[in-house]
């Protein structure tokens, strides 16, 4: 761990909405939301009314009747997001981008050239403002976790530098939900035991926290509460998994609901596995019920797969098995697939027995035919666009989709 605060976490403020207001001056100063069926992003003006991302459109309109919905300019998000991160790269090569609009940067090696970390952060903020017209908030601290918290505290349009001597005082006064890994469920669980600030969490015994949150996540969270975070900036990441999720609103827990959703997710994920030549051996599905509770189930396969139809079959099997085990849950609000244990391009071929389950095995003739068909689809899409060709079975999912595919691509893009 470093002894000086030289890690920056830079995060563009209300990014999508800010880009829309940048592109259309008439939207400036007004509450706007990107999306339609679902709020993908809201401007600060809209957030003041309580509008939040992932909120259903009708609910957002109820909270804020003047809310303006805009469809979104996804290629502009990509261009401006890239440009903002490039500004950071002007000051250090040690940049780890974690999404379209945020990145970590380690400037410990750049101080002789550009000045103190705080000065570099001020330069970055000024340049992003002048060159791109966007507000970017930056947190500066000794660890990644604390830098990210500091940038959240800095918003909107601010800079917070946490001095190593005062970091625990800073950290312990803040609410727990600012921490990485504390979502609504964990927050509620902690609140039940009287923990609402990071300081209160830090005072709990490791045993108590582990009992409450499980061994691994309990220990991790407690370490973060004491600002023990040894993670370094990773400039080149080899992906360990590929995943995507689909929010459904509140729908019945029935196959006609989740199959098309899973098929759509599988199409995206399998396409990315094929693009990297990294088929997966483990498939994990997650289902979120009507409350915020979610359940996962995983299977590890004998041979790594990357065919869309095979991934769909496996995901549907896992989800139906999972729902069978939770018969009391009548509705679901989200399904997700994650592909991990990524392998290489070698493939054990199967003896040509021609058995009934051949199709789902990548090393059989049928299995290889599936993959060839998928690669042909990939080639057509690369040339004529995603919509040019698709599985007939995934077509009925189209109408119900609240989030545009362009947005998904952006969110899932390898950075």
């Amino acid at each position: 761990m470093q002894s000086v605060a030289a890690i920056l976490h830079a995060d563009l403020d209300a990014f999508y909405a800010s880009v829309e207001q940048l592109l259309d001056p008439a939207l400036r100063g007004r509450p706007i939301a990107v999306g339609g069926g679902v709020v993908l992003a809201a401007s600060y003006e809209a957030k003041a009314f309580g509008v939040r991302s992932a909120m259903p459109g009708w609910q957002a309109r109820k909270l804020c009747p003047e809310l303006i919905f805009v469809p979104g300019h996804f290629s502009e998000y990509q261009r401006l997001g890239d440009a903002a991160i490039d500004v950071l790269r002007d000051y250090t090569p040690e940049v780890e981008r974690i999404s379209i609009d945020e990145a970590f940067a380690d400037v410990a090696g750049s101080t002789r050239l550009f000045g103190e970390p705080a000065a570099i952060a001020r330069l970055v903020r000024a340049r992003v403002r002048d060159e791109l017209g966007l507000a970017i908030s930056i947190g500066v601290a000794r660890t990644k976790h604390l830098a990210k918290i500091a940038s959240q505290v800095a918003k909107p349009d601010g800079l917070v530098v946490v001095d190593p001597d005062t970091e625990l005082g800073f950290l312990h006064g803040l609410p727990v939900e600012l921490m990485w890994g504390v979502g609504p469920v964990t927050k509620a669980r902690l609140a039940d035991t009287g923990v609402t600030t990071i300081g209160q969490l830090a005072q709990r015994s490791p045993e108590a926290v582990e009992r409450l949150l499980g061994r691994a996540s309990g220990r991790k969270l407690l370490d973060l509460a004491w600002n023990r975070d040894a993670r370094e900036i990773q400039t080149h990441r080899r992906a360990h998994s590929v995943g995507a999720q689909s929010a459904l609103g509140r729908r019945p827990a029935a196959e006609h609901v989740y199959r098309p959703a899973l098929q759509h997710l599988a199409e995206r994920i399998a396409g990315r596995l094929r693009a990297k030549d990294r088929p997966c051996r483990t498939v994990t599905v997650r289902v979120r019920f009507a409350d915020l509770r979610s359940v996962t189930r995983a299977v590890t396969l004998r041979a790594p797969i990357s065919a869309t139809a095979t991934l769909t079959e496996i995901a549907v099997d896992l989800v139906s098995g999972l729902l069978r085990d939770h018969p009391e849950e009548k509705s679901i609000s989200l399904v997700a697939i994650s592909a991990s244990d990524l392998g290489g391009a070698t493939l054990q071929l199967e003896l040509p027995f021609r058995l009934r389950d051949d199709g789902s095995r990548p090393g059989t003739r049928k299995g290889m035919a599936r993959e060839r068909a998928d690669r042909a689809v990939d080639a057509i899409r690369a040339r004529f666009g995603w919509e040019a060709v698709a599985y007939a079975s995934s077509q009925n999912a189209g109408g119900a989709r609240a989030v545009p595919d362009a947005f998904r691509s952006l969110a899932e893009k390898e950075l």
Partner: protein
Amino acid sequence: MKLRIERAALLKSLQHMQSVVERRNTIPILSNVLLDASGAKLALTATDLDLWMVEHVAATVEQPGGTTVPAQTLYDIVRKLPDGAEVELVTETDGRLLVRAGRSRFHLPSLDREDFPLMPDGDLPHRFNLAAADLRRLIEKTRFAISTEETRYYLTGIYLHAAKTETGTTLRAVATDGHRLARIETALPKGAAQIPGVIVPRKVVTEMYRLIEGADDDVALSLSDSKIRAEFNGAVLTSKLIDGTFPDYQRVIPSGNDKMLEVDAKAFAAAIDRVSTVSTEKSRAVKIALEKGKATLSASSAENASATEELAVGYDAASIEIGFNARYLIEILGEIDGESAEFAFADAVSPTIVRDTTDQGALYVLMPMRV
């Protein structure tokens, strides 16, 4: 029940019993071994409800009777007793079993023998004798290929059947996991001509093998469509068979492979093992490039390690490059008893045949890897 028995004989039988007993049982009595003393013998029985093992061991019975006690605990006790000890087993008035040897005394809880599940009756119409050595060979050379995939339950055993060949009928054992296949045959024993084709579960194969380990007497095998029984030296193993259809395996054994390679089996396996060291993937792929008189083995890893080794081999056909899972190759080569192995290739994506040049009754088929 009251008896005295020699430790070594009891230990050997208990070894078989504790192996049959499953480690985790929802029905408590299935963790127990049934002891039944009468005449000059102690009968031991263990079951997992699919497989029954009954064994008779000579004992000095002072008072006939029986009980059931935890198989694993009794085995562990007898195992730790000194060599040459005499063990005394006595049922006590409180229902427990007293185990006594020298100055050691143990009391084991028991469960009522009346509750011990009985083996279902059934006729086993086909009966034949097979030399223990022949049965051992059928098992040894096929069991590595048995599938572990529960979804393909019909591949999780050895397919035993009488097969007609050009030279007559033979007794065949076949096992496959979908990637490789082993087919071993032996002369058809008298009385086996009409046997049904049966799939013998992996566990039965293992227990049967343990029973005949190191022995060379005959094993009496009895069969029906749904059951198998092996009788050997006072032990009787009876089991259900796998209820399924073994796929038509002849279909995956190619007949036109004409690229022949002859290698020293041990040297070839050692070279493959060396080269595959650098391969970090689970599959451990190794590539074989063949040209006249020479084989080049190579392997590499995603982390940029690589290895090659050249070998002088008997090869006279067109050049070919083909990939395999190194472990599969090494396992098959390990079953070659003679000095040399003969490979027959077609191309890089089709089944390859491996034979022992000194054993025409053994044949292996291996599917390549796409590398």
